[in-house]
Every structure is written in C-alpha cells, then in structure tokens.
C-alpha cells in the first residue's frame, strides 16, 4: 500500500512551490533587486547573498563596501526572514492559506521600528552572505538578529539587531 503523503513526487512539488514563493516574495521588492540581494534556501533556513558590484563601494581608496549598503543588506535579510516564516507557516497550513500564497498574495511586510548595525571590519570587494535569527516574534512585535560574513563564516564583518512591527490582515 502506498502512503500518498510521503510520495517523492509530492515532496518534490512542495519544494518547487516553496522556491517559487520565495523567488516571488523577494522579486517583488524593487530595492532588493537593485541592491542585488538573492536568497538561497535549505529547508526553512535562508541565506542572503549580496553579489559584489562596484556600485556598492563606499571607500574607493581601500576599497571597502559602503556602510549603507551593508546596513541595507542586513535589514533586507531580517525583514525577509520574518516575512518568510509567515509564508512558510501559511504554506504548511494548506487550504486557503496556501492558495493565497500560490496566487501571489503575500502577508504585508513587517515594518522596521529600529535597527542597530555593528560594523566589525570593513567589507571587502567580494560577495557577502547573511543569515537572520528571529529571537522573538509575537502578534505585534519581533526581535531579529542578523550576522554577515564574506569568505569565512566564523569571521563576521557586520551584525545587527532590529525590532519590527508585525502587520495583521486588515492593518493599514
């Protein structure tokens, strides 16, 4: 007897749906595209990648990435992680919640209340990576920590902590 819920084909389809939803969510934000941030997914874990470009330079003499570009990259990573957790839950719930996501109707993005960036060392002219950890999320408020590195995961070049206002359906 076959157990339909664990059929390899349906698991494959679910993974495709998750990747499609992630690409759609990140692809819908102009500044995420302009800065050049893309997301890679392993299960429910996201890693953001900021592809190096000369446009991101803040100090041409060193050269080093602009602190503003680094801060923006970390804030994007934090917001996407929070939003992705909401999307993930809806997709897991199935039914109407899943249908909404499949139709491209995503929950409203959380709004940044405050964001503190800690610049640990200068960003070199190469690709950067970041991962966010949601330390607390409630109905209204969330606290998120983000870490960014370049070639060496253990050698962070920036980290940040931010608080976010979660928006419920019907909020303006």
């Amino acid at each position, binding site marked *: 007897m076959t157990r339909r819920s664990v059929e390899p084909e349906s698991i494959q389809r679910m993974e495709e749906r998750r990747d499609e939803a992630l690409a759609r969510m990140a692809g819908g934000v*102009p500044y995420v595209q302009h800065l050049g941030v893309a997301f890679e997914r392993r299960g429910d874990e996201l890693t953001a990648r900021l592809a190096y470009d000369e446009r991101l330079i803040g100090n041409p003499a060193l050269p080093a990435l602009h602190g503003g570009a680094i801060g923006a990259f970390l804030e994007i990573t934090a917001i996407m992680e929070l939003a992705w957790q909401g999307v993930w839950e809806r997709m897991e719930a199935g039914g109407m919640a899943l249908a909404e996501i499949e139709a491209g109707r995503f929950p409203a993005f959380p709004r940044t209340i*405050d*964001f503190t960036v800690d610049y640990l060392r200068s960003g070199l002219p190469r690709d950067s990576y970041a991962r966010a950890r949601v330390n607390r999320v409630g109905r209204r408020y969330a606290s998120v920590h983000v870490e960014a590195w370049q070639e060496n995961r253990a050698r962070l070049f920036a980290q940040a902590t931010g608080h976010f206002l979660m928006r419920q359906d019907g909020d303006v």
Partner: protein
Amino acid sequence: MSGAASGVDKERARGFVASIPHSRDLGMDLVDIGPGWAHLSLPYHERLIGDPETGVLHGGVVTALLDTCGGAAVLSHPEAGLSTATIDLRIDYMRPAAPERELHARAECYRMTRYVAFVRAVAYTDSPDEPVAAAHGAFTVARAVE
C-alpha cells in the same frame, strides 16, 4: 550658516560625496556643509522602493543616506582625522518616507575625541520637524601616525 562662510569647502565636499560609488548609485547630493555638520539629499526613484503596495522607500536607503551624512559631518569637523568609518549606527524609524518626495538627511558630529566621533542625525522628506528616521552613531577617527 552656510558652508562657504564657515571655512568648509562645499564644492570639494560635494565632489567627495559624488566620488563614492554607492552614494552616486543612489543619487545622493550634498546640499550644504559646515564645521561638524552636513545636509544631504536623495531623489525619489522607483528602484529604491521597499514596499511595492505603498511606494515607500526601503529602510536600507534611509540607512545609506544617514550613514553617508554622518560620515560627512565627522570629516567636516574642525578636529577631524584623515578618514572615518562607521563603528555602529542605530536608526529609529518614526514614519514611512512619503512616496515621490526627495529624502533629506542632516547630521551633526556633536562630540569629537581622539579616536571616536559621536553623531546624531535625522532623515525627513518635507520638514525636519516630521522626521522619517532618527539616528545615533559612533565613527572611527583615523589619525596620522606620530
């Protein structure tokens, strides 16, 4: 107080901001500068939107403008070092940036020490009395080796 009257070369500072690739990419311009303070602007552009539903600029754009403005305020301080880099920057978002409006930032280096400069800044669209964001930061002060 205008930049020229205070001894800070405004055109040189403007050229400096324009020489930063990321500032140029975002379209930043130096409006005015004086000893220990700076005023920068950034025109609205669709590619800088963070919320497609409302057309509000991404918080990261506000961060980039406040960071650059803070650095300019540090470098324009009479006791500035050779260069500066951000140590940390905290930003409080007080209201969304109104769509289609030019974004402004004013930063002041209110305390300069041998190795650290302290900065406060605001970002706004129409009036500094209705800030989009307020920031507080610490910057490095690179001194010549004695």
